[in-house]
C-alpha cells in the first residue's frame, strides 16, 4: 500500500452478504517510455456490482482497463479470475475468460447490420451463416437485458446511444460476465445516459460485473457500488456505498487538492453587437447541416451552443470562421460582412477560433510552439521568427504552459498545455485584436486542473469585453458558463434560454429533439 492511499466511508450495505470476487488485479505495474502508467495498483470487482475507476486523464485508468481485458500485458503483477490465476495475452483471451471492453470509440462496421457486427470476430459460426438463427439469438440476448434493438438495422443509421447498445450486446453475446465500460457517457445525451444506467442495473441484477471508467463525478456517485480513485498511476482511495459519497471528497482524491469545478458566471456589462448571424443555411453533400440559424452575440457576452455531437455545431463554427461557405445567409463580425470571404478576412476583423480538433487543426503537431503561434498571424515572405520569440516566451509564462520554451514541439505537449497554447494564440490576437472568440469543446479530454484554468481564461476574456461563442457537448459546461444558451438540433436552433435560469431537463429535451418549436 502506498502512503497516499486510504479508506473512506466504508459502505454498510455490502457487509451482510458480500458477493464473491469475480476478477482481481494485484500489484499491477505498467510502464511506458517516460511514464509509469500503473504503479503497484490493486483492483477487484465482485459479481453483480458496479465498480468505478475514477481518475483524471493520464491517471492510468485506461491502462488498467486495457490490462484487465487483455489488450496490454502488465510489466509485473498478476490477475485472478474467480480466485484462479490467469494470463491474458490478447483481448480474445480476455473474452474466453468472460471479460469484454466497450471502448469509448466504437469498433463497429457502419455498413454492417447489428447482428453482423455482433457476430464479427466469432470463430465458431461455420462457413455458412444462418442469419435467421443469429438474428433470433442476438435479439434474445438484447431482450434479456432490456436492450431492445433491431438485429437487421444497419449500424451506420443508428444513433450514438444505439451504437453503444450494439457494443454492449456484442459483449454479452460473446459471453461476457465482466464488462469494462470506458467513458460510456461521454457521447450520450442526458436521456440516453439514464437508459444506459437502467441497462447497467439490469446487467448487474443478472450477476454481471461492470467496471465503469469515468471522470465525471456526478454520474460516478449515482451508478457505482464502489469507487477506486487513481492519480498518477497510483490508487489514492477506495470509496464505497452507493449515493452516500461526497463528490467534493472524490474530486480531492482525484486531483490531490481542493478544487472549484463550477466556475461562476462573472457579472459584467454587455456591450454592442459583435457577431450577427442571419438566416444561415448550409448543405454538405446535399444534406442540410444548418437550417436558417440566426443569432447575435454582444461584447462581453458568452453564448453557449448545446447539442449532441453531429447536429451542426462544428459546421456552424467553421462557417463563422470562414472555412465553409454557407448556402445562404450572412455573417457579420464587428460590422464587417465576412460571409464567404475566407478565414483570413474574418481574422482581420477580429475573429479568433479555437477548434475542437486541437492537434491537427488548431495546432500543427510537428511544429514548435513558436511556429504554431505564427499559424494565424501575418508571416513575412521570409518568416520572421526572431521578433516573435520574446512574445512566445511571455505567453508561455502568462498562460503557465509547461514547455521547455518556444521551440517545444506541439505534439509533445499534454492536452491541457496544447489547449493553453491554442488559447494563448487566439486570445492574444494576430491579424487584429480579438473581438469574437469561437471555442469548440474547450475542455474536452482535459484533466480537472486544466479545465479549471481554461474556464477561467474564457471568463477573463469575456470580462475583457470579448464576445464568445462556446460550443460544447459538455452540457454542464455550457450551463455553468454561458449567459445565453442555444440548443442546436439537426442544424436548427430549437431552443433559446438565458443561462442563469436554464433548466437541465428542458435543455436536455431540446437536445434530444423533443421540443418541437423553439421556446424562449
Amino acid at each position, binding site marked *: 500500500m502506498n502512503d497516499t492511499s486510504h479508506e473512506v466511508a466504508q459502505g454498510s450495505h455490502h457487509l451482510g452478504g458480500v458477493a464473491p470476487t469475480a476478477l482481481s488485479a494485484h500489484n499491477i505495474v505498467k510502464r*511506458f*517510455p*517516460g511514464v509509469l502508467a500503473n504503479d503497484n495498483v490493486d483492483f477487484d470487482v465482485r459479481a453483480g456490482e458496479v465498480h468505478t475507476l475514477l481518475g483524471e486523464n493520464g491517471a492510468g485508468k485506461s491502462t488498467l482497463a486495457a490490462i484487465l481485458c487483455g489488450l496490454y*500485458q502488465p510489466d509485473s503483477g*498478476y*490477475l*485472478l479470475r474467480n480466485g484462479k*490465476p*490467469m*494470463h491474458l*495475452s490478447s483481448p480474445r483471451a480476455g473474452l474466453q475468460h468472460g471479460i469484454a471492453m466497450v471502448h469509448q470509440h466504437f469498433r463497429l462496421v457502419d455498413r454492417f447490420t447489428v447482428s453482423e457486427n455482433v457476430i464479427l470476430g466469432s470463430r465458431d459460426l461455420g462457413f455458412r451463416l444462418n442469419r435467421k438463427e443469429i438474428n433470433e439469438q442476438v435479439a434474445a440476448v438484447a431482450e434479456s437485458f432490456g436492450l431492445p434493438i433491431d438485429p437487421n438495422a444497419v449500424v451506420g443509421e443508428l444513433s450514438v446511444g444505439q451504437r453503444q447498445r450494439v457494443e454492449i450486446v456484442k459483449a454479452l453475446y460473446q459471453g461476457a460476465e465482466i464488462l469494462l465500460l470506458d467513458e460510456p457517457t461521454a457521447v450520450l445525451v442526458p436521456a440516453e445516459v439514464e437508459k444506459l444506467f437502467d441497462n447497467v442495473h439490469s446487467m448487474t441484477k443478472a450477476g454481471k460485473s461492470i467496471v465503469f471508467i469515468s471522470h465525471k463525478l456526478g454520474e460516478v456517485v449515482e451508478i457505482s457500488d464502489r469507487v477506486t480513485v487513481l492519480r498518477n498511476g497510483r490508487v489514492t482511495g477506495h470509496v464505497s456505498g452507493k449515493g452516500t459519497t461526497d463528490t467534493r471528497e472524490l474530486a480531492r482524491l482525484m486531483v490531490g487538492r481542493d478544487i472549484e469545478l463550477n466556475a461562476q458566471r462573472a457579472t459584467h456589462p454587455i456591450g454592442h453587437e459583435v457577431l450577427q448571424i442571419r438566416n444561415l443555411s448550409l448543405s454538405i453533400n446535399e444534406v442540410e447541416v444548418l437550417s436558417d440559424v440566426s443569432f447575435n452575440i454582444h461584447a462581453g457576452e458568452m453564448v453557449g451552443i448545446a447539442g449532441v455531437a453531429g447536429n451542426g455545431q462544428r459546421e456552424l463554427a467553421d462557417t463563422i*470562421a*470562414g*472555412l465553409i461557405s454557407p448556402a445562404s445567409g450572412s455573417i457579420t463580425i464587428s460590422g464587417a460582412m465576412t460571409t464567404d470571404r*475566407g*478565414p*483570413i478576412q474574418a*481574422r482581420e476583423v477580429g475573429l479568433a*477560433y479555437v*477548434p475542437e*480538433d486541437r492537434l*491537427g*487543426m*488548431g*495546432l*500543427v*503537431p*510537428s*511544429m514548435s510552439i513558436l*511556429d504554431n503561434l*505564427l*499559424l*494565424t498571424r501575418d*508571416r*513575412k*515572405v*521570409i*518568416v520572421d521568427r526572431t521578433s516573435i520569440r520574446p512574445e512566445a516566451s511571455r505567453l508561455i509564462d502568462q498562460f503557465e504552459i509547461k514547455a521547455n520554451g518556444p521551440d517545444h*514541439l506541439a505534439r*509533445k505537449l499534454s492536452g491541457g498545455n496544447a489547449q493553453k497554447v491554442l488559447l494563448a494564440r487566439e486570445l492574444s490576437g494576430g491579424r487584429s485584436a480579438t473581438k469574437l472568440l469561437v471555442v469548440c469543446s474547450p475542455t474536452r479530454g482535459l484533466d480537472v486542473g486544466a479545465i479549471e484554468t481554461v474556464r477561467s481564461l474564457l471568463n477573463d476574456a469575456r470580462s475583457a469585453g470579448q464576445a464568445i461563442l462556446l460550443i460544447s457537448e459538455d452540457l454542464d459546461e455550457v450551463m455553468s458558463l454561458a449567459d445565453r444558451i442555444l440548443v442546436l438540433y439537426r442544424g436548427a436552433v430549437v431552443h433559446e434560454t438565458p443561462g442563469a435560469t436554464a433548466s437541465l431537463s428542458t435543455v436536455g429535451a431540446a437536445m434530444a429533439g423533443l421540443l418541437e418549436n423553439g421556446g424562449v
Partner: protein
Amino acid sequence: MRLPIRVVFDQRGEAPKRLTALVPIVSVLAALFFGAIFLLATGYSPIDTYTNMFSDGFASSRGVTDTLALSTVLICTGIAAAFAFQMNIYNIGGEGQLYLGMIGGAWAGITLGDHLPSLIMVPLVLIFGALAGALWIFVPAFVRSRLGTSEIVSTLLLTYVASSLIDYVIYTPDSFFRNPNTSFPQGRLVSASAKLQSFGDTRLYPTIFVAIVLAVVLYWVVKRTEFGYRINVIADSPKAAHYAGINAKRTTMSVMLISGALAGLGGAMLIVGPYGKIEPSIVNLGYGYAGIVIAALARNNLAAIVVSGILFAGLRVGGEKLQISTDTPIHIGVMLQGAILLFALGGEAFRRYKIRVVLVRAVTT
C-alpha cells in the same frame, strides 16, 4: 505451441540524434553484407569486389570526378523527388520529367541559334529543360490539386509516354531532334555555345555547382520562407492549413511544378554537359528513379541529398568499372542500390520504435 517470446515495439517520443545519423550508415553496411551473400554464392570474393568498387568509385581521381559527374543529375532528380515527398506528394515520374528536360533543353540548344553567347545559351537550355519538366507534370499537378487524383499513378504512367516520346524523336527518320548527317539514329547536336566545357580531361561539368547550390537554397526555402512554412503545415495537417487560410491547392500545384522542373533541369544538364544531344540510351539508365531512392536515403532532407546523391553515384560508378576491370556483373551495383533502399526503409523502424524481445512469463501467485 507458441514461442514464449514476444517482440515489443515501443514508440519513441523523439528519435535520438545519434540514430538519425546511424541508421543510413548501418543501412548501407547491411546492404553491402546482403550483397556479399550473393557474391559469395556466385563465386566472387566480396572483399575484393567491394575494395575495387570503393577505389573505383571514391578513391581514384578518375573515380571521384566520374562519381561527381554522375551525382550532378542524381542530385537534381533526388531533390525533385524529395521536394514533393516532404509534402506527401509522391511524384515518382521524375524519370519522365528528366526525358522531357532533355527534349526541352535540346530544342532550345538547337533552335536558339549560334549567335547567342554561351553565357546566355547555357542558362536558356537549362531553363527550357526545367520548363519542359514542369510542363510534363502539369496535368498530374492540376488534377491532383483540384480533384485529388493520385499523382503516383499519373506521374508514373506519363513516364512510359515520355520514354516513347524519346524513341519517337530519335527513331523517326526526319525528326527534328535526329542527327540528319548519320544514317544511324542519333540525337542532333546542339549549337556549340549551348555546351559547357568539362573540367580538364574529366567528365565533370560546372553544373555540379548548380545542383549543389540548388539543394542548399531549396533547403533554406523550406526552413525559412513563407512558402516553406506553408509546405510544412500542409505536409503535417491539411486541416490546419485550411484553418489558417493557407491555399493548399495552389501550394500543391507549385510544389509539383517545381518538382517536375527540377527533374527536367537534370535532363537539361545532360545536354549542356556530357551529351550535347538527346541520348536515347537515357531510358535505360534510370536516373529519375534513382532520385526516389536518393530522396529516401536522405529522408527527404534537401541538403542531405547532396551526400546521398554522391554516395549513390559512387556505388554506381564503382559497379560499372568493376565490370570492365573484372568480370563481376554490373548488376551487383544495381542490386546494392535496391538493397540500400530496403534497408534504409527498414531502419526507419529502429528509429521510430524501441524494439525489444521479451520473454513471456508464466503467471506466478
